[in-house]
């Protein structure tokens, strides 16, 4: 693979969608330096902070959604932002049940603050997060009436993964997590000792009077946890196919005894097996839309209210809207995004984005002779190769630059990366 294709692949996966200029720069800097810059950005993040959350509930969550979409487009810290999106899909908490925008933002702040540090500290903060507690009925988990929801997902989806615990571990783990209450209004989280089960529990072979942190410590000691994290990251950033054993070994070694998430997520991009995963992921609708906006020089914050609302609605029609994952299992992947229904919505959004594309983009394409315009489109959208089929279809519309742009955005080559 040529160096340009290698860095283009890296940037397509580690950012929400690179611009041609970003690929140019990366090509000059080389793969290793580009990966390093993605992992530890040299300059501060300049993207705008969250909006003030006031007014009607529906308006608050819409503003928050629009802000995050804009931030995904604008932030120079692309890999960090994409990891925030990853953690959102990992802890998969939905506004549908939490019902308070402030708590959804509070949870996202935890992803930003702790998502690159020690996983143990991150998990201990998450089990105290009011949004997660409300989402998984943690406040209904009491000594008198244990609720296993949070304990089960903590093991199955957040740490050790399915197959690495028993139903008895779920029941005992739930007892360790009893007693928490979360206030929906102000987000206050408290441990009510009268609701806490202080008795002996046996979890994953260990017995003691474990509380919440004691339970998390047990989970952190399981070798399965590091492997599970490596697998989840591979699944979202590299390939729908299982992670190769040697890559998993390298990633878990980077995670190490300090449970270092920055080292783990860095090792993913630097892994020798990573470049070979080109073409093995379907862009999630948000990745697709945000990437298109980055490449077309569009910022949701500059849209008028109606257009911004439509962007959110069309993402919703594609079944992916931030702050509303479909279930605690997170968003679907791969071919599930490729349906006759979603392709229709993608078409409509592609047309809207192409219509909104600024003159500088349109002029740049128009300046290229029609015969080679499709190649210029490939450069703009960072598509390595057009198949003969798509090249032919695009050539048929090369005269009409906006139409060409829309067709490029819906092309199979652009939707899979």
């Amino acid at each position, binding site marked *: 693979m040529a160096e340009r294709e290698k860095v283009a692949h890296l940037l397509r996966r580690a950012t929400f969608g690179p611009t041609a200029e970003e690929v140019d720069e990366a090509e000059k800097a080389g793969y290793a330096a580009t990966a390093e810059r993605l992992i530890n950005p040299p300059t501060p993040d300049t993207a705008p902070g969250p909006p003030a959350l006031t007014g009607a509930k529906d308006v608050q969550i819409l503003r928050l959604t629009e802000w995050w979409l804009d931030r995904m487009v604008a932030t120079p810290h692309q890999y960090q932002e994409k990891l925030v999106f990853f953690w959102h899909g990992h802890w998969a908490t939905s506004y549908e049940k939490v019902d308070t925008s402030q708590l959804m933002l509070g949870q996202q702040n935890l992803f930003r603050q702790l998502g690159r540090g020690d996983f143990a500290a991150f998990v201990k903060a998450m089990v105290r997060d009011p949004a997660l507690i409300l989402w998984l009925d943690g406040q209904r988990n009491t000594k008198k009436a244990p609720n296993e929801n949070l304990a089960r997902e903590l093991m199955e989806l957040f740490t050790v993964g399915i197959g690495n615990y028993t139903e008895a571990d779920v029941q005992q783990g739930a007892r360790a997590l009893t007693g928490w209450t979360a206030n929906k209004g102000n987000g206050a989280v408290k441990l009510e000792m009268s609701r806490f089960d202080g008795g002996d529990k046996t979890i994953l072979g260990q017995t003691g009077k474990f509380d919440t942190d004691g339970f998390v410590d047990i989970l952190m000691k399981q070798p399965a946890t590091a492997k599970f994290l490596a697998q989840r990251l591979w699944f979202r950033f590299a390939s729908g196919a299982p992670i190769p054993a040697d890559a998993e070994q390298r990633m878990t070694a980077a995670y190490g005894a300090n449970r270092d998430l920055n080292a783990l997520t860095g090792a993913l991009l630097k892994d020798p097996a990573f470049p070979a995963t080109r*073409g093995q992921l379907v862009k999630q609708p948000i990745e697709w839309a945000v990437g298109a906006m980055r490449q077309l020089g569009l910022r949701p914050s500059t849209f008028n209210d109606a257009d911004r609302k439509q962007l959110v609605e069309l993402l919703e029609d594609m*079944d992916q809207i931030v702050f509303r994952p479909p279930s605690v299992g997170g968003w679907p992947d791969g*071919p599930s995004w490729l349906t006759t229904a979603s392709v*229709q919505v993608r078409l409509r959004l592609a*047309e809207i984005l192409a219509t909104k594309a600024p003159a500088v983009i349109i002029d740049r394409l128009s300046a290229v002779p029609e015969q080679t315009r499709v190649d210029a489109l490939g450069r703009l959208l960072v598509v390595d190769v057009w198949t003969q089929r798509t090249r032919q279809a695009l050539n048929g519309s090369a005269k009409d630059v906006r139409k060409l742009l829309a*067709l490029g955005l819906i092309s199979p080559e652009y939707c*899979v990366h």
Partner: protein
Amino acid sequence: MDAVTRRKFLIASGVTGAGALALGATSFSIQDILETAGEAPGADGPGTLVMVTLYGGNDGLNTVIPFADKAYQAARPELSYGADEVLKLSETIGLNPAMTGFKRLFDEKRLGIVHAVGYPKPDRSHFRSMDIWHTANPVRPTGTGWLGRWLDTVGGDPRLALSFESVLPPLLAGELSAGAVVGRNGVKLPKTLNIKTVSALGEPAAGESSLQARAASCFADLRNVDTFIQGVNDSAKVTGQARATGTGGQSALANQLNLVAQCIEAKVATRAFSVSLGGFDTHADEKAPHSALVGMLDRAVTAFIDRISATEQGKKTTVAIYSEFGRRVKANASQGTDHGAAHDVILVGGGVKGGLHGEPPNLTKLDDGDVKFTTDFRDIYASLLEHVLLSDAGRMLEGWKGRLKGVF
């Protein structure tokens, strides 16, 4: 492939594989499908399944009403219906007064009610519980729906499983394929991007990855679905069977069922349809609005059954009506009900034996305030897969063994 063998292939496998579509080997018009219908092995072939999803959690106890049960009356004095109000189905059970059509279908022994359907450890979250119903997996919602998995096994042509909703209902999403979602107005494309332009992206291309080929096949599917829907509309015009009033007085469900009826009358290859009605999440002052909703359901489904019963294919059509959960037995403080658990599933038409099936809920033995299930929902899916779609239910339901008794 010549026409005759293609037709035979269609009959054998229930149309064609997504792979064949992706390769551009087949391009069906409604005419192709109409031709095959005449050659279908009549009584031995699969029937048609129409899944009606009620979103929001339908109050099962005010739909199929245990009016004689003291516990029912005591739990919701302001919300309950008395013996003089319900449409009696037995000495103890009656239908909501708004459901006169269902009452007639019941008396004609064409409507069956399966009591207290649910699953272990009921989840009271709308979407989680709906995921469970869609995926038929109460332990861990998987990425595929139970009818999507069926679609995978019969070749994956999206036209075999159609939805007239706006987004793909998860029940139609398979591992390898997905049902077609055409919306109520067929394929809608933006002005500048017509079907001819975009379907050029659906041609096969040498050497592309399987995911990219799948992305391309969506465009081929789109073209096929578009042709298909236009054909259905045209054939309805020709035969004078279009009965949509277009006055806006019809419910969204009635509109969707009209399209399904047109498809069935046109004898299309589609075996499974998904339609839906929303608005059942009634936490407060629910008696009147709930009755209006079940009335809407009653009118839409009764009109549909009456209409299609005139055709052979229509007689082999089974309608199944369900929601993600029922509601709490006890009314809440605001004359509504909160999220509950098991509820009755209604089956109409086809080979369904009318009557009351399964064990009615015991309202004095509740599960955390909710109706305990007496029939697992997978029993219903398994029986529908076997008796309506004539397929191997175990393959789609992880070897599930339970079946409905006495319903088919």
